[in-house]
């Protein structure tokens, strides 16, 4: 079922590319169809999803691949990865809708890359063979690089290369760590395997565990991203076309958080616990630094990008608090940030599409020109500054309340991040939406955009007011993550 899911997307990607030569309006429809039809293999899992009966995986499947090295196509889903896969598909749809009018140049190849990248991401969320995981990790990156380098804005090549170098450096470290982990396991047990379940049983010696863990850890926090490895993100976001920004913020960053939760914490519980205080300090610094940087930006997209860094700091913070509540919080924060940042980037893209600028000094008085779009932007700004009743608040609140017992002082610093969120959030409203009118009249949101944004808004409201189904779904995974490290 899971293989089908990925294959459908890859097939869709190829068909979209080919169909371009027939008619250049076809690729986007094919993208939509393949995204929707990829829900089909998932539906039995979703139906059965909440009734977890103690089993680790909701669904798992394994096919032999490179038998010489005992590498298999081992794919599985639990609550955590199911949530993230659903988020990816949904945000993929949002991305396609964002690109709907914006991308006309070589649209076939665009949707090919978009769908490939999505397939790679979903593969990352499903793969439980470490080698396979790495392969998907790369599949996700290369199309992303092309998307930024070809369809980006004025400074796209610089941004694309920066993005590629940073993530590739992380990927290299991860590959080294994977090899080291597998070889150490081979030395001890005489069995060569990349299988996650088997490696999970294996206890490394303390010193080697630390170094192996570090490789994974750095790869994932580059992806998240966490200060001081964050600076690829603002450039990538500013230069990427809207749809790619949406994918980048909503899904790609989450692979970092997912990696921490899936690999670093369960595989290296004691080493993780050892560095937890330092990591949490780093996360708190990242929250504050991201907030400060967001406030000082003039480019709307850059501002939102830095705010992502600040929000992702909460994810790292929650992961390393190593309590059930905080881990739930980290997961909720990933989901909610996925939705809210996707909406924000889509809205910024909508503004840029209309006025060809993202400069806050040139915007202003948007409320009088585009009242609906402004109201929507305000809603998502308010969501991202953590208004209770919306999803982001639940994430941040759970992270904070779960971490407070572990690290009270650092948690108080993280709470200050909420004040900064208000400061930079209101800056968006003040500079872009309010004040005297500076721009010419323009068409307000159309039906396609309205449906998309209202859908996302309702999703955030649902997460904020009734998060329990999501929490229940993630409970099993959270148990597994925290069982090793608690106490």
């Amino acid at each position, binding site marked *: 079922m899971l293989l089908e899911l990925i294959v459908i997307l890859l097939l869709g990607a190829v068909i979209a590319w080919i169909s371009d030569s027939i008619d250049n309006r076809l690729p986007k429809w094919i993208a939509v169809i393949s995204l929707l039809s990829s829900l089909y293999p998932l539906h039995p899992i979703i139906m059965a999803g909440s009734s977890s009966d103690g089993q680790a995986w909701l669904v798992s499947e394994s096919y032999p691949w490179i038998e010489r090295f005992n590498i298999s196509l081992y794919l599985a889903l639990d609550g955590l990865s199911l949530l993230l896969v659903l988020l990816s598909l949904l945000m993929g749809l949002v991305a396609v809708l964002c690109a709907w009018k914006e991308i006309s140049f070589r649209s076939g190849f665009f949707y090919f890359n978009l769908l490939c990248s999505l397939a790679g991401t979903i593969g990352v969320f499903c793969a439980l063979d470490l080698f396979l995981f790495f392969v998907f990790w790369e599949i996700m990156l290369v199309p992303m690089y092309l998307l930024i380098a070809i369809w980006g804005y004025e400074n796209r090549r610089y941004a694309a290369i920066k993005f590629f170098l940073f993530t590739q450096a992380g990927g290299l470290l991860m590959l080294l760590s994977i090899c080291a982990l597998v070889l150490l396991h081979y030395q001890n047990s005489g069995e060569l395997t990349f299988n996650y379940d088997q490696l999970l049983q294996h206890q490394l010696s303390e010193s080697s565990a630390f170094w192996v863990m570090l490789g994974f850890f750095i790869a994932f926090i580059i992806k998240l991203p966490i200060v001081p490895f964050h600076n690829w993100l603002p450039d990538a976001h500013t230069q990427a076309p809207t749809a790619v920004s949406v994918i980048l913020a909503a899904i790609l960053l989450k692979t970092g958080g997912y990696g921490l939760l899936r690999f670093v914490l369960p595989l290296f519980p004691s080493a993780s616990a050892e560095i937890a205080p330092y990591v949490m300090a780093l996360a708190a610094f990242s929250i504050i630094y991201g907030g400060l940087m967001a406030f000082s930006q003039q480019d709307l997209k850059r501002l939102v990008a830095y705010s992502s860094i600040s929000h992702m700091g909460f994810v790292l913070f929650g992961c390393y608090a190593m309590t059930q509540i905080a881990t739930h919080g980290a997961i909720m924060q990933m989901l909610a940030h996925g939705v809210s940042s996707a909406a924000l980037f889509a809205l910024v893209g909508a503004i840029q599409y209309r006025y060809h600028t993202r400069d806050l000094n040139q915007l202003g008085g948007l409320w009088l020109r585009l009242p609906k779009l402004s109201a929507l932007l305000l809603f998502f700004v308010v969501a991202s500054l953590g208004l209770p009743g919306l999803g982001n608040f639940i994430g941040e609140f759970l992270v904070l309340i779960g971490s407070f017992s572990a690290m009270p002082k650092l948690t108080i610093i993280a709470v200050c991040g909420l*004040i900064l969120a208000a400061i930079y959030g209101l800056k968006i409203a003040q500079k872009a939406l*309010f004040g005297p009118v500076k721009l010419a009249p323009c068409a307000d949101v159309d039906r396609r955009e309205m449906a998309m944004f209202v859908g996302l808004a309702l999703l955030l409201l649902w997460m904020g007011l009734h998060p329990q189904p999501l929490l229940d779904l993630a*409970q099993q995974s959270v148990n597994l993550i925290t069982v090793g490290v608690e106490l």
Partner: protein
Amino acid sequence: MQDHYLANLLMLVVLLPLFSACLLMLSALFSVKLSKTSVTLLAVGCMALAAILVLLVGIEYSDYAGQSFSYRYANWIEIGQLRLSFGFYLDPLSLVMIAIVTGVGFLIHLFSIGFMQQDADFQRFFIYLNLFISAMLTLVLADNLLLLFLGWEGVGLCSYLLIGFWHQQPANILAANKAFIMTRIGDAALAIALLLLFLLLGSLNIQEIQLKAVQLWPLDDNASQYRLDWVSICALLLLAGAIGKSGQFPLHTWLPDAMAGPTPVSALIHAATMVTAGVYLIARFYQLFNLSPLAMLAVASIGAITLILAATAALVQSDLKRILAYSTISQIGYMFLALGAGAYSAAVFHLMTHAFFKALLFLSAGALVYSLGHQQNIFRMGGLAKKTPFICACFLAGCAALSALPFMSGYFSKDFILESLLQQQMYGFWAIAIIGAFITAFYSFRLFFLIFCGDCQLNPDKKLPTSMIIPLALLLLLSVFGGIMPAVLNVLFEGGPALLASVTNDSLALHLLTIATPISAVLLCWLIFRKHSFSERFNSSLTPRFKYLLFMGWGIDRLQEKIFTQPFIRLCQANKNDFIDRLSQLLSHISQYGHRQLQRLQNGKLRWYAASLILSAIVALLSIVLLR
């Protein structure tokens, strides 16, 4: 079955304004044009219905005879020990609060119909207003801290939106930002309090928290009284949250600026309801606060400082709404003072009468400004008593109640506060409160005389519509007679000092003093007014610099800007380009530099290649020989 009836009533009270707000919002979003009449019917109708339902709630609740009623509607979050639900908690305190919110709220809605009639954003105004009402009701009724926090942030957001309602003026937006960010600082403290309480007591249910707190940290008479223990820290953090929301020193500077919003908003949010949320919060946690003498002292001191600071600042302002704003800050200071003395019912009583007379003052100010064509400077007014007799009567009643002249509503409540201060033997605070009362009476009648007596300068050009007159008349009645039945409020807090029993115990002289103070202030004010000694300018006064200092609200605003805002902005500007990014760019510069240097070796000159070949061979050989 009755439980369900009451529970459903409460839910409806909260959901009705929310429903109308959502409906109006959706109609705006999907371009369904509604006429002003239908917007009015929907918004004000729902509000009226909510007010009527609160009446029913009151009738239903009277069966409970002061017992609390709580009901859980649905689960919100449930992870292990963390159990949160959507639950409401009704006791006399929250009943009084929802009655004020819906009652005064309804009157202000009614007033707004006329006031906002000409505004293009009529619908948006009522969306925000109804959203506010429903958030405020949630805040007041919540049975757990997180739901309270939801309401707390919700009212903050609505306040932000309404201060910046006329968003084309950048100044309004700045005022809105300031209000939101400064209250958010308090909110952060409240959030930390929430985390700490959960960590220490393992619950977020407000009643459970207090029960556990009483068990865990019993008040120890023998130990040194003012020590900083856990309960004090929790209480002080809650206090910090309350300070932010209620505009108390040192987080009060947003409130005078918040007057940028439409006047009905100032009346509803920045006088009658939202800014009293801090008072409500402390009253709600009175058992917790009772456990910490230190926190109680802090509450009283904050109240005392604020009431004097704000009252003196109100003395020299020239903008009508700014005077009323400072007066609000100062009156809430009184409430904090009462809370700090443990006189919770006195504080809530003053909250109620204050809601009446301050709403009256703001609305009549709104009516005045409306009929004068948006003139707010009181020195440009004068002699309006004959031209606008009704507004004059409203102002007179409002000012009299604010000054606590005998037998007005404000008199009873302020008198209770003063008495409870005496009872608790807090004589210093009592003296401050008396001085404050003197200043209050002085500035309120300075306002009144300057507007309504003397020479006429302006002509009102608009007649008030009936929808504005009715709420004014009702509030006028409430301001005059609203203080007569304090006995109802006596059941609010068991254990607090009783209100009525205390009247005869004190010496008559002190009692007379509280009556004489405001009257003498009014007389003094009249004398000065007759001599034309009030002036807008700063040079005619004896101490111009001091007057300017007062005018600037003791310069606290400017101080905060110097100490916090400007360094913050400078810090952000300094690192605008992200020094970490510079560092990583350094890496690319270094490698490019290395690339260029190495490139120079490949220059195509054969001599150069031969020489370097020989040289490196020699070096290699030598190193082998020498290193052996």
